[in-house]
């Protein structure tokens, strides 16, 4: 009963992902799958699933949907177009899986071999029971540490890739636009008449006085320090 309570919303939401009226349906799929894994007795994986899938992936989708005002509901013109061929292929896959599980589904087309089927052994209580986290750590940090380190590198590369791809030209990155600077001050630069540090400082002091609030206002205004070179009065 527990299984069906959790799995049927997950299945329904899974089918609704195709329509995607909202991002809510994938979130429900992730949540119910996490619940099913909890029923298997895997507590750590069931807690990691919401963190990774909902907290990272679904939230990213939510950001994209929110910021781009995407019309998600589409007009379905071709829903049944692929159904005959894909239905047959899906049924063939479905039938082939029973080779692995060694259970007969269609009596005339037999999938059973003369081997024993899989058994589900309960070792808890026979030995000191480890938690799920301990068993994962026993493998992942000792024998398979390489996977662990490589997956961290993989995430680093993905992060750098995402940042590099979406960096806008107009984002406020502290770069000096040399060409803009040259067009504004071309005469001074060509004639090499930039003022020395002493006159810059004297102009700065005359501009601000000794008032720290006005100093902050000048520094955070957009025209600083260009107004020092031209001798602007404070706006």
């Amino acid at each position: 009963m527990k299984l069906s309570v959790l799995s049927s919303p997950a299945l329904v939401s899974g089918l609704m992902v195709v329509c995607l009226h909202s991002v809510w349906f994938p979130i429900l799929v992730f949540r119910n799958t996490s619940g099913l894994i909890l029923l298997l007795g895997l507590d750590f994986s069931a807690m990691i699933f919401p963190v990774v899938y909902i907290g990272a992936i679904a939230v990213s989708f939510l950001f994209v949907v929110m910021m781009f005002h995407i019309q998600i509901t589409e007009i379905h013109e071709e829903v049944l177009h692929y159904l005959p061929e894909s239905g047959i292929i899906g049924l063939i896959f479905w039938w082939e899986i029973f080779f692995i599980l060694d259970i007969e589904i269609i009596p005339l087309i037999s999938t059973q071999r003369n081997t024993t089927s899989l058994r589900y052994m309960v070792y808890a209580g026979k030995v000191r029971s480890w938690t799920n986290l301990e068993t994962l750590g026993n493998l992942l940090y000792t024998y398979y540490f390489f996977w662990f380190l490589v997956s961290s590198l993989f995430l680093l590369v993905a992060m750098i890739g995402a940042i590099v791809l979406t960096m806008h030209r107009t984002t406020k990155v502290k770069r000096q636009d040399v060409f803009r600077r040259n067009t504004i001050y071309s005469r001074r630069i060509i004639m090499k008449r930039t003022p020395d540090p002493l006159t810059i400082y004297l102009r700065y002091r005359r501009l601000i006085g000794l008032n720290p609030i006005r100093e902050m206002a000048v520094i955070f205004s957009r025209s600083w320090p260009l107004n020092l070179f031209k001798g602007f009065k404070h706006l």
Partner: protein
Amino acid sequence: MDSIKYFTFSMIIFISGIRGILLNRRNILIMSMSIESMLLAVNSNFLVFSVSSDDMMGQSFALLVPTVAAAESAIGLAIFVITFRVRGTIAVESINSIQGSGPFSLGERIRFELS
């Protein structure tokens, strides 16, 4: 018998993810979400069989699969953001009309069609 029910569940989610990719060529956001759903189904499958055959390798791998899923969805969404910014639409049916600098770029295609 329980194992079959879990497996059936993940199989249906996987097939619905494939169906989502096939049917939603015009909307790359739904395609991305269907790919995530496929990865989730495969991951849950790994966990179910790891419990059923009492082996830890399934769970170790099922810890790495969400890593790949998150990284791939981040990059996919970044590419989607750029594409949307440039083209203003999310239809990817005609996405191969974007000219690249690959082996079959414009000059060679013209030469190929003329010959």
